[in-house]
C-alpha cells in the first residue's frame, strides 16, 4: 500500500545566504520525488548592479553570500579586468598574492563550517565543536588583515584595498601552524571512524554521468570524479606559480564529498604558506583604474562551493549594461533532484546539505501528513532521526 507523504524542508531563514524550500515526497521511509523551490531571498542584485558604478559593484556583490563573500567580488573584478586586458596584465604583483591568500583563507573557513555541520547532522557533535574551535582563529585573522570577520571589502578593480603588512605575516604563519594539527585531527577522526564510514558511504550518490548532465561544479563535481578546478584550469591570482594538487574522488557519495573538502583544507593551507613566502615585500597594491572601456568580460573563480561566474557588458560609461551572476549552488542544488531521490528520509537532511547549500533552512524542516496536513515531525526531529541512525550503527559496530 502506498501512502505518500510530503515532507517540506525550508524555506527560509534570514541568516542564510541561500534560502530554499525542498518538498520531499516520501513513501514510508523512502524519498520518491523532490521539488526544489527557490527564490525566497531574490534581491534583484543583477538589476541593482546596473544602477551602480563600477567601483561600487564589489561591495554589492560581496553581500550575495555571507560565507564565500570574496568569491563574488573576485569574479566580478576578474570579469572587468578581462575587458581591461586580463588580471595578470593589470593587477600589481603584490596584490595578486594578497588576492590568493584571502581567497584560500576563505575556503578554509567555509570548509570548516561545512564539516562542523555535517558532524552535527550525523550526531557527532564533537566534530561540530572542533570545527567551530578551529574556524575561530581563521576569522580572527581575517579581522586582523581585512578589518572584518566577514564581508572583507578587500577587492577592487585593479588590485586590493588593503595591504598585508609585514608585521602581520608572523601571526598568519603561526595560525596556519596551529591549524594544521587540527585539520589532521579531522582527517583521522572522519576517515578512520568505521561508524562515519558506514553512515556516509553510498548515501546521496551522484554518479559521474549525472554530475556531467546536471553540470555541477566544485567539490560536488570533484567527488563524482569530474576533474575541474578553476584554480588550475584558468589560473587567477598566483595559483599557477604555486605547488598544489586538485583533490579528486570518484564515488560521488557524501563520504567522497567530505574527503574532498578535508583534503582541500591541506592544499589551502599549503597555498597560503607558499604565497606568504613568495610575496614581494612592499610595492603597490592598486593599479588605480579610472575608466572601463566598452566590451564584454567574463570572470570566474573557484569558490568554496565551485565555479562562481560573472559576465559584464560595458558600453564605455561608468556603469555596467548587464551583469550576469551565476553562483555555484545554482547548479549544485538542482542536482539534489537525483541525489536525494531513492534514499531514505533519515539521509535526506544530510544529502541536501552535502552540496553545501544552506543549513539554517534545513533547520526549518517539517514532516506533514498529506491527508490532513498535520505535522508529524519538525526539523529538529529529522536531524534527530539522522543522529539516531548513527547511534544504531555505532552500537552494532564493534569498537576498534
Amino acid at each position, binding site marked *: 500500500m502506498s501512502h505518500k507523504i510530503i515532507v517540506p524542508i525550508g524555506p527560509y531563514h534570514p541568516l542564510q545566504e541561500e534560502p530554499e524550500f525542498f518538498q520531499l515526497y516520501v513513501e514510508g521511509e523512502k524519498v520518491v520525488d523532490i521539488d526544489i523551490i527557490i527564490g525566497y531571498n531574490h534581491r534583484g542584485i543583477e538589476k541593482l548592479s546596473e544602477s551602480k558604478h563600477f567601483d561600487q559593484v564589489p561591495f554589492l556583490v560581496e553581500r550575495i553570500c555571507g560565507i564565500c563573500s570574496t568569491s563574488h567580488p573576485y569574479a566580478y573584478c576578474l570579469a572587468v579586468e578581462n575587458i581591461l586586458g586580463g588580471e595578470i596584465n593589470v593587477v600589481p604583483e603584490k596584490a595578486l598574492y594578497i588576492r590568493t591568500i584571502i581567497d584560500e583563507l576563505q575556503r578554509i573557513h567555509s570548509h570548516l563550517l561545512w564539516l562542523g555541520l555535517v558532524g552535527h547532522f550525523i550526531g557527532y557533535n564533537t566534530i561540530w565543536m572542533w570545527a567551530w574551535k578551529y574556524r575561530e582563529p581563521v576569522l580572527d585573522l581575517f579581522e586582523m588583515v581585512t578589518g572584518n570577520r566577514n564581508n572583507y571589502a578587500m577587492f577592487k578593480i585593479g588590485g586590493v584595498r588593503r595591504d598585508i603588512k609585514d608585521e602581520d605575516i608572523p601571526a598568519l604563519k603561526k595560525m596556519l601552524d596551529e591549524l594544521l594539527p587540527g585539520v589532521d585531527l579531522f582527517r583521522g577522526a572522519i576517515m578512520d571512524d568505521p561508524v562515519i564510514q558506514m553512515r556516509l558511504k553510498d548515501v546521496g550518490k551522484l554518479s559521474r554521468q549525472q554530475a556531467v548532465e546536471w553540470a555541477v561544479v566544485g567539490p560536488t563535481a570533484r567527488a563524482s570524479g569530474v576533474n575541474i578546478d578553476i584554480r588550475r584550469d584558468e589560473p587567477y591570482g598566483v595559483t599557477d606559480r604555486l605547488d598544489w594538487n586538485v583533490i579528486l574522488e570518484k564515488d560521488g557519495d557524501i563520504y567522497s564529498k567530505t574527503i574532498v573538502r578535508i583534503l582541500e583544507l591541506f592544499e589551502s593551507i599549503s597555498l597560503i604558506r607558499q604565497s606568504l613566502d613568495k610575496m614581494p615585500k612592499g610595492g603597490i597594491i592598486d593599479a588605480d583604474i579610472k575608466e572601463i572601456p566598452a566590451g564584454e568580460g567574463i570572470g*570566474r573563480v573557484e569558490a568554496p562551493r565551485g565555479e562562481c561566474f560573472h559576465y559584464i557588458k560595458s558600453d564605455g560609461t561608468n556603469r555596467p549594461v548587464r551583469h550576469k551572476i551565476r553562483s555555484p549552488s*545554482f547548479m549544485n542544488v538542482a542536482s539534489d533532484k537525483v541525489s536525494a531521490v531513492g534514499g531514505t528520509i533519515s539521509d535526506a537532511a544530510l544529502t541536501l546539505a552535502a552540496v553545501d547549500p544552506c543549513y539554517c533552512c534545513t533547520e526549518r524542516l517539517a514532516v506533514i501528513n498529506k491527508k490532513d496536513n498535520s505535522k508529524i515531525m519538525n526539523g529538529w526531529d529529522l536531524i534527530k532521526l539522522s543522529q539516531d541512525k548513527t547511534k544504531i550503527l555505532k552500537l552494532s559496530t564493534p569498537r576498534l
Partner: protein
Amino acid sequence: MDMRDRIKEKLQDKIKEWKETSTKRIFLSLDKKDIYRVVEILFKNLELRFITASAVDLPEAFEFLYHFSNDPSGEIYTLRILLEDKIKPEVASITPLFPGAEWIEREIWEMFGINFIGHPNLKKLLLAEDWPQGDYPLRNKQ
C-alpha cells in the same frame, strides 16, 4: 586537435562570426534556428561543460548568450544569438538535451519573458507566484 579547430570543423558554416576578445574568451555568433543542434554538438560530442546562459535586453533585439567551458584549456566559448522579435521572443529549449539547463531557462523565462519551446517544466523559479503577468523585471522599461 585544438578545441578551436574541432569546433570550426564541426560547426562549419553555422558560425556567422568568430570573435576572440582575449586568449581564453571566444564569442561565436549563430543563427537562432541552429542553436539546439549546436548545443547538442558542443555538449554531447565535444563534451564542453555548460556554465550558464544569459540574456541582454538591447534596443533592437534580445541578445541571448550560452556560456560553455572547455575545462582542460580554461577557455570559455560563448554562443550568441539574437532574438529580433521583441514582442514575442522565442527560442528552442536546450533542457531536453541535459537537465542542468532547466533552472536557468526558467529564470530567463520569468525575468525577460523569453519563451522556451519544448521546455518540460516552464514555471516560476525566483519570482513569487503572484508576480504580475507580463511584467518582466530585467527588461528595460521604455
